[in-house]
């Protein structure tokens, strides 16, 4: 299974990953629409992103979230009813939403962000 791996100690908070992600999926450079978020801390930065743990699969009332054959947890937007339980229940706080859309969004380990990261703080790995 492909997963985005994080090494926060290498993160310099340039936010390039956020730009890459939102541009890929929403055609817009806007961190509020990114599936990866960098929280700047005093000592260390925190990289918030999905671990593909699958907890959100079990809380979705309409089974809109499933794991695909590559192990990636995906949302089927056509059946999602926009309840955002998955947003509130994600242990990583890595299920995101934006008021412009009525469905949530999450990392699908596409790797576009990792390509832009100057320090290799994030990378796509096979588990």
């Amino acid at each position, binding site marked *: 299974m492909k997963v985005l791996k994080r090494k926060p100690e290498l993160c310099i908070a340039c936010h390039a990953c956020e730009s890459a992600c939102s541009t890929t999926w929403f055609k817009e450079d806007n961190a509020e629409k990114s599936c990866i978020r960098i929280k700047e801390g005093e000592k260390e930065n925190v990289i918030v992103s999905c671990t593909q743990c699958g907890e959100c699969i*079990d*809380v*979705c*009332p*309409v*089974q809109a979230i499933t794991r695909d054959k590559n192990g990636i947890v995906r949302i089927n937007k056509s059946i*999602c*009813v*926009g*309840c*955002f*339980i998955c*947003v*509130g*229940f994600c242990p990583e706080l890595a299920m995101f*939403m934006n*008021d412009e859309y*009525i*469905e949530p969004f999450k990392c699908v380990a596409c790797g576009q962000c990792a390509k832009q990261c100057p320090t290799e703080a994030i990378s796509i790995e096979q588990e």
Partner: protein
Amino acid sequence: MNIEKLKSAHKLLKEYKYELGKIERGYTNRTLYINLGDNTIKEKTVTQLMKDKFIGGKGFGLYYLWNAVTPDTKWNSPENEIVIASGPVGGITQYPGSGKSLVCSLSPLTGMPMDSNVGGYFGPLLKFSGFDALELQGKADKDVIVFIDGNSGTIRIEEAPEEAIDSHILGEQLTEMYAENEEDKRNISVVSAGSAANNAYIGLLNFTFYDVRRKQIRLKQAGRGGIGTVFRDKKIKALVVKFAGVKGNLNNPADQSSINKAGIKLHKEIHDLDDKQNRMRQVGTANIIEVMDQYDLLPTHNYKFGGHPDTYKISSKVFTSMITQNTPDGCWYGCSMSCAKAVDRFELKTGPYKGQKVIVDGPEYENAAGLGSNCGIFDPYAILELNFYCDTYAVDTISYGTLTAFLMECYENGIINKEITGGLELNFGNSSASLEMLHQMARGEGFGKLAGLGIRNLKRIFVEQYGADPVFLNDIGMEQKGLEFSEYMPKESLAQQGGYGLTNKGPQHDEAWLIFMDMVNNQIPTFEDKAEALHYFPMFRTWFGLNGLCKLPWNDIAPADNKLTEEPAKIPDHVQNYVDIFNGVTGKKIDKNELIVQSERVYNFQRIFNIRMGYGKRIHDAIPYRAMGPVTAEEYLSRQERYDKQLKELVGFNPEGKTTEEKMAALRAYRKDQYEKLTDAVYKRRGWTMDGVPTVEHLKAIGMDLPELVEVVKKHL
């Protein structure tokens, strides 16, 4: 199940086409009227007055009911209506508990308007199909089904002779029949009753939702007050609504963002804290069984006592192990509180479905206490079996539990005997007798049929036919206004006695549950404090019913810092959430005070409706003494130390050297007087006369001095 055969037996009585609606800020601005007597189907416009004064949900229900009936209308008069409505907030998917339907009708038990709050998808799907409410009037000749297709804009009344009556089968049959395929089943909700509702006055309505994981329907109950009996009297077999395309913004809210924000905040709270607080996600409302026992609040043996050494056998731990875990059991989308628990593959041991493996929707606390401890039954399997049969037969578990407990006490006191019961040995603890009585109720036979008339009628019959002592029966028969008490022991909490007694529809805890505030935490010591609580909480809780909301996510979870707030019992943070989601949907700008006034209008309307029907006065707010104190020496002696101490410290009566009878009499006089004083204080706070009639000044002050209301109250001032 041969669905084609069932379907081919249908006869179309009426088809009606309508323009699909558009929801604006929570309202479709249109309701649906159906008369089953002459098959009229028509649309009505929601007026500004309705929205301003009645908001929606049970406000709309009571408003239509008022216009439909006269003071002479009985529950089984053709003009009596069943009104089902969501509410402006109903159908949002982000905030837990936002999919309730409110059902109103004149009750066979009370003769007054009844309202019941129920989960399942019907209310929201009805709204998305284009209607803020559905009015059902008249009576059909033969069993009919009303089908609303919210995607094609079609309504059909079909004669339906062959389907089952019992809900667990009928719900499946109709879901299968009206869905195009498996995927489509989630778009269907069925409302149905069951065979006991053909006979008993305590019939309920089941509302379904389709559980996509179990691939079966689930049943949620509009339980109280016999609305299922009215439904069957109208010869309605079922209502079916179908709407495909639910999304999170169909209410077209004024401000989706504020709804999202409040919803996600509460989801997080539930995720982080539910395990530490009430464990609603694991075991639902049954989490409190042992807590109630511990505080002497779990009704046992017809409310004689508040606890029992055997309670551990039906504790929440026992039920947790029987309930299927880790499934999203919300009764509408977005309810992360997820209390709609179920026991799967439960094998029935009795009755017509013996041997079948079924889903038991529950057990909820009320069922465990009512069907269980109150009847001295501490067998979890028997409780689940009773729970299942009550639901599918359409019997209100609360009324059933409370009236069975009453019958058991009558039986043990020799007021009724085996000859009268047709052989049923109704001793406390006899679960087989309780089950057999329930099956009789469904078959419309024997003593079970009689029992279904409810405690008020049973008291009369026992006095008239078997020479029972009316004073004793009135003391121990736990009903008021004709409705059976729900399952909390109110003896040691005066505020809760008021919470049961000073209600509109009868002794149901959905108006006020003050036992902990009052008895355990002593937060409302004076009459004025209690009166304030008996004003605020009933009004606050009424508001859920105006909006299509559930009460549980308000205070069955609390923010981590709730205790530090000024009024923890109100959960101020959640009150603000409700203000935010209401404003978010409707675009209005209410605050927490206006929220209370919105409720006050409808609450006073309902009180005046009761008065119009010949009730709703002070005498109707009296409660049986069993709810206030020890009726029998057995009860007194079981808590002698407590009562003796109270006599000394509160009553100023020295118990030493007195007989139990003398002590009981002194305590009784004191407690009755306390209840009267409380009643005075509450009426005053609510703006009512000492006879319980809302004054014209008060109606003016809350903006509810509608001419038809003033006309009613004037006769009683």
